[in-house]
């Protein structure tokens, strides 16, 4: 198996709605930025892999061949991955396998999703349109009519059962995790929401599904992110500072089966993490990683993820927040971008964006959100709104 590096990254800032840019324009901008970052031209690309959460929300079916032509990549092969909100980690996984196997030398991964182009006719709300679009990503035979939105679902399936079992995270710890990410977003020029909040502000905001309140929930955004992967041989020609993908895994484990053993657990994340650590040779992630971007669809999921990712034992995630371990100046900074609750979120893009961010961190080019790099390793994770499809990647310089 060949080594695989990320040699170029390109993003556009998170925004609630790009009224003046189509999804094609956003995708073009991210891809162009990534190619410029890698000092490559589109002719150098062997394969393009596209990620999108919900084509309904783009108002465009079969988006991959449209954007492929828009980018001028005719006659080159393309793929589109489909794993709901985790489609971008699936793209990264597919791109890694493509380069590692020797099928391609240089792969473009382009993740695009607009959340704000669809609006609800009854309420004239883009937020309601987003939720309706999202509902079509649920199992339309059995679940669409009975499953609540992501925040309520994750609270019911993961957070509350975990709190009942361990007594943690406490509401205070949830509030602190949210405040940490909101504070981080204040200095991130690409963040969508910049609010100075106290723990009380977070806990007293609207109850979405107890104990999850509004400021503990991810945003709805428009965004695009692009990554250029290259083989070892090509990477060394392209850059002096390749960032290697030293571990990667992605798997599904349906959380919606409501099995007793998986209530309060994000099982697919735990399986993915263990495989990725084994591949990267990581034994103690808390000590061996410098930075992590974790999928905080709700703040409770961020804290539970610390446990599933092995940063601490079961029931101990809240202590990492209390002790400041995951703050920007802590032992393992988590979400220096502001994460999904403050920087921005849309399915099938967030993990690609996180990967770009960690690459910048490891190059020490992250500007105002830079954290100290000592071990030269970072982690990203990803999950769909059910937590049924999860993925983890370890990046290393």
């Amino acid at each position, binding site marked *: 198996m060949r080594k695989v590096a990320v040699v170029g990254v390109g993003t556009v800032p998170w925004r609630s709605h790009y009224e003046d840019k189509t999804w094609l324009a956003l995708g073009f901008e991210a891809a162009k930025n990534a190619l410029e970052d890698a000092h490559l031209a589109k002719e150098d690309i062997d394969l393009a892999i596209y990620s999108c959460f919900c084509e309904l929300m783009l108002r465009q079916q079969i988006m991959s061949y449209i954007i492929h032509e828009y980018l001028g990549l005719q006659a080159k092969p393309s793929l589109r991955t489909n794993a709901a909100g985790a489609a971008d980690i699936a793209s990264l996984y597919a791109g890694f396998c493509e380069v590692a196997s020797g099928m391609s030398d240089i792969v473009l991964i382009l993740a695009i999703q607009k959340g704000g182009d669809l609006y609800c006719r009854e309420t004239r709300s883009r937020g309601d349109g987003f939720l309706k679009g999202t509902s079509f990503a649920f199992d339309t035979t059995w679940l669409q009519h009975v499953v609540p939105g992501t925040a309520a679902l994750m609270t019911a399936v993961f957070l509350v059962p975990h709190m009942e079992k361990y007594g943690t995270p406490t509401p205070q710890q949830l509030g602190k995790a949210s405040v940490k990410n909101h504070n981080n977003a204040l200095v991130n020029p690409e963040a969508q*929401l*910049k*609010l*100075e*909040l106290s723990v009380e502000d977070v806990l*007293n*905001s*609207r*109850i979405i599904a*107890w104990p999850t*309140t*509004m400021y503990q929930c991810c945003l709805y955004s428009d965004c695009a992110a692009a990554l250029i992967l290259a083989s070892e041989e090509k990477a060394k020609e392209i850059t002096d500072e390749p960032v290697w993908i030293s571990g990667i895994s992605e798997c599904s484990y349906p959380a919606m089966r409501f099995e007793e053993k998986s209530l309060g657990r994000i099982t697919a994340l735990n399986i993915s993490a263990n495989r990725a650590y084994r591949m990267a040779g990581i034994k103690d992630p808390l000590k061996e990683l410098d930075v992590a971007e974790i999928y905080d669809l709700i703040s409770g999921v961020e804290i539970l993820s610390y446990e599933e990712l092995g940063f601490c034992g079961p029931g101990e995630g809240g202590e990492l927040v209390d002790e400041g371990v995951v703050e920007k100046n802590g032992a393992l900074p988590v979400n220096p971008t502001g994460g999904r609750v403050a920087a921005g979120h849309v399915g099938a893009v967030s993990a690609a964006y996180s990967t770009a961010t960690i690459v910048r961190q490891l190059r020490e080019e992250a500007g105002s959100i830079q954290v100290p790099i000592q071990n030269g390793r970072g982690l990203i994770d990803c999950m769909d709104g059910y937590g049924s499809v999860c993925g983890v990647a370890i990046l290393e310089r």
Partner: protein
Amino acid sequence: MGEVKDELKRVIPLLNGNPRAKEIIEGWPRTVLFELEGEETPFHISVREGRLSLGDGVPGEVDILVRGKGKELARVVRRERDITHPIAEASLKVEKGQLSQLIIFDRILATAKRKT
């Protein structure tokens, strides 16, 4: 006069002068009647010509009827917390109308403390 009414008297002129609040108020032509412990008499809030107004007594038509503890609603008006909290604790109850409509009223109140 009770605590809630005092708070509403203070905040309503601010909301009527707030462009973001006005936008929501114009799409929310409702009358809310409050019958609260700690308030001497029932009172109501209604939207007339795109402006919020506070009135005494029971109006002819009521879209939403809220009963419960006045001091809890006063905290909501002061934006110490969102209206979903006293509803969840059952210290305020929506006796008529939909909670979702009351949440829109809460959104109007929230514009007075918007930090962005």
